[in-house]
């Protein structure tokens, strides 16, 4: 097996760029066990041997409060299931030495074999210590690199190879602990499990990390010793002071603060005068968001049409090749249709991650959080939640993936739980159909045209509900343990297209491999639900799961398709849920539509088209379908669908989690079924209650 080396350091030090430089383009993105922290590993060819490089998430300190922060120490020391790296390359930003060296000191206390990659040396002030001086000071190898251009990377590789053969250093503290702290360190070390290195540094890590309501996973003996040695926060603050101050005292004695502001800093100050200006700042922010929105909504569409066209053409080819039959249908509609409904997300995912990558790598994302923090905080959300929330208007799937831009699991989860409430583009065809069928184009209420007014109202409704949901969830399911915002505003830097492209590719790949398979399986199940059982004497009418994957075979008036659907398991389910949805004003036919809509909301329109025998090509503008809906009568001769039913139906669609793809991607991002199940339950419950209130309330007020 290859030797492992870890790449660690502060955020914004060029660590990701260096990782990409070192490893080319073949990183594998996995996951740390138990937490939703991604773990990128890649092979690196040195002159004589190959090593595996592990990218440790960037952090300012190794001390941890949560399991996701604990990942760093586990990866560096090989605790838990992680293999121990033989060497750690630590990225140190030359323009920000004192804070970066704090991390280095922690690593040296643990006895890690370090090679320091001194980055940003092209931006550092003239009086900054150079690599040799730092190496002499720290007693480990230091290589100056410019990750952006690749300068110094070859030397870094040579030094890594040389150091791999060197002896392990001894763990070293840079300050002399007081007798009281020394006693605590010894007591903590005595409680370590056998396979833990008994270093002072690891004891200090445990002492400064644990305490209060930390969420760390620690061996029982250690936990007991910690409770004994650090009985309360007061004692905790005492050891924090001694430890943190001890390290910084050494740093401040050895590293003089830079006397002059760097060029990057000066440029950043000038740019910030505009970008976080009360007027221009918000104007530019809105313009950037509008551009992002335009890309997701408008520019992605032609690409999505091409993908849909390609998959339906492929389906037709396969159909022509295989001839009629149940297997053909399974392949064409279940498999090819399902695969199409996965791939069709790619344009939006790629566009969104292009924007997110540019915003993050340039340093602008931190300013977004700085600008929006006050508004988002009042709803319990992180300032960076704005971009995913806005993207939710286009599609929840890429928006949920974009929650990665937040570091804390709690912030990500909260955003994921409310993003699907935003009015996504798949809800539009449903609203258009219902508004067109049940509301007159000439009707006005309070002087506002009803049709247009309803559409606007539905958008506002979704935003209000999403923010309310965030507020309620942040007080109940996902309370903040530490609500403080501590945000670095890094200097602006030109993003490297290679890094951005790599992130886009990794996100797209993860989506296809992990969420895609779930979506595909669900599409096949839904197809089967709506197409089985079938009598043998029936012609091969069928329902396409995908609104756009039109089959040339089914003409608009062909009845068998609706016969088939109306006797399918889906229809039986529709009948079965009728008692539950009747109080909302829905009959079993809408029930079938709702079930079909799980594949994607817009499929509701196509399913209703088949239920009403207008053909699956029916779209939301189709007069035939609108008329059928309008003329549908209850057994007593009254119209089955009234504006009130229409309103109730739209409220249901606004709130219910009618989307397998959303659930699949939440499962992928949270690594488990708990959160997708919760999301589905709370949204559908909320939808039922609100539709119930609308329908029953409307009836009480005398509407029909």
């Amino acid at each position: 097996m290859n030797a492992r080396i870890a790449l660690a350091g502060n955020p914004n030090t060029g660590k990701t760029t260096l990782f990409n430089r070192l490893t080319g383009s073949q990183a594998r993105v996995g996951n740390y066990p138990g937490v939703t922290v991604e773990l990128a590993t890649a092979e690196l060819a040195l002159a004589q041997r190959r090593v595996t490089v592990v990218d440790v998430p960037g952090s300012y300190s190794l001390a941890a409060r949560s399991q996701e922060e604990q990942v760093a120490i586990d990866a560096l020391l090989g605790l838990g299931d992680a293999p121990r790296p033989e060497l750690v390359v630590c990225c140190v930003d030359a323009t920000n030495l004192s804070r970066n060296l704090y991390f280095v000191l922690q690593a040296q206390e643990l006895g890690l074999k370090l090679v320091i990659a001194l980055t940003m040396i092209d931006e550092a002030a003239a009086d900054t210590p150079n690599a040799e001086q730092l190496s002499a000071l720290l007693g480990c190898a230091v290589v100056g690199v410019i990750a952006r251009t690749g300068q110094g990377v070859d030397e870094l590789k040579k030094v890594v190879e040389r150091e791999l053969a060197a002896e392990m250093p001894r763990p070293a503290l840079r300050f002399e602990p007081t007798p009281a702290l020394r006693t605590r360190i010894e007591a903590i070390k005595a409680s370590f499990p056998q396979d833990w290195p008994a270093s002072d540094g690891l004891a200090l890590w445990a002492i400064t990390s644990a305490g209060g309501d930390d969420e760390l996973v620690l061996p029982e003996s250690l936990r007991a010793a910690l409770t004994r040695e650090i009985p309360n926060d007061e004692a905790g603050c005492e050891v924090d002071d001694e430890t943190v101050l001890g390290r910084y005292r050494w740093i401040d004695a050895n590293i003089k603060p830079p006397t002059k502001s760097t060029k990057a800093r000066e440029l950043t100050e000038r740019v910030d005068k505009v970008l976080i200006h009360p007027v221009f700042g918000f104007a530019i922010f809105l313009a950037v968001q509008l551009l992002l929105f335009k890309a997701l909504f408008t520019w992605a569409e032609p690409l999505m049409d091409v993908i849909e066209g390609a998959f339906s053409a492929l389906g037709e080819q396969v159909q022509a090749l295989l001839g009629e039959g149940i297997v053909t249908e399974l392949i064409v509609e279940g498999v090819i249709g399902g695969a199409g409904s996965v791939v069709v997300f790619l344009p939006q995912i790629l566009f969104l991650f292009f924007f997110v990558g540019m915003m993050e790598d340039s340093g602008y994302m931190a300013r977004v959080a700085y600008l929006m923090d006050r508004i988002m905080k009042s709803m319990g959300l992180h300032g960076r939640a704005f971009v995913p929330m806005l993207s939710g208007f286009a599609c929840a799937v890429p928006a949920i993936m974009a929650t990665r831009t937040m570091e804390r699991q709690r912030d990500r989860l909260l955003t994921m739980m409310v993003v699907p409430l935003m009015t996504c583009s798949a809800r539009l065809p449903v609203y258009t159909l219902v508004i067109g069928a049940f509301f007159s184009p000439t009707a006005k209420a309070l002087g506002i045209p009803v049709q247009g007014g309803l559409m606007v109202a539905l958008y506002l409704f979704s935003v209000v509900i999403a923010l309310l949901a965030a507020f309620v969830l942040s007080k109940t399911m996902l309370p903040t343990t530490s609500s403080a915002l501590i945000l670095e505003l890094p200097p602006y830097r030109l993003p490297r297209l290679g890094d951005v492209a790599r992130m886009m590719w990794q996100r797209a790949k993860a989506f296809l491999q992990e969420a895609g398979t779930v979506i595909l399986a669900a599409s096949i199940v839904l197809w089967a639900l709506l197409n089985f059982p079938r009598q043998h004497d029936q012609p091969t009418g069928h329902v396409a799961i995908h609104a756009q994957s039109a089959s040339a075979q089914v003409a608009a008036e062909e009845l068998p398709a609706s016969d088939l659907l109306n006797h399918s398991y889906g229809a039986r389910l529709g009948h079965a849920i009728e008692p539950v949805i009747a109080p909302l004003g829905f009959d079993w036919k809408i029930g079938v539509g709702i079930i079909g809509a799980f594949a994607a909301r817009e499929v509701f329109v196509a399913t209703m088209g088949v239920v009403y025998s207008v053909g699956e090509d029916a779209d939301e503008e189709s007069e035939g379908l609108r008329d059928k809906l309008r003329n549908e009568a209850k057994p007593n001769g009254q119209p089955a669908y009234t504006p009130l039913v229409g309103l109730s139906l739209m409220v249901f669609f606004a709130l219910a989690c009618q989307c397998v793809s959303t659930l699949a991607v939440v499962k992928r991002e949270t690594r488990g079924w708990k959160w997708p199940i919760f999301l589905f339950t709370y949204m559908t419950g909320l939808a039922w209650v609100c539709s119930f209130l609308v329908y029953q309330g409307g009836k009480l007020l005398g509407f029909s």
Partner: protein
Amino acid sequence: MDSAPRRLAQLPLRTPCSVLAVHGSRPVRRRLLELGLVPGTRVEVIGVSPLGDPLELEVRGSRLSIRKKEALTIEVKT
């Protein structure tokens, strides 16, 4: 020059000062210390977000943003 201890959030913009002590809850306090806001460190509030919160600080040559609530836990002298 005023040398009585005050809180960072109470100083006018662009008033250079140095940290005396950090109060507040242990986890937040530890993070602030680890970012270099240890006693004796020079710090300056150089900006306020247009909506009034959070603040932008300059400390050790880098820019940090923290909310007023946290800036009230940092005791400084000018």
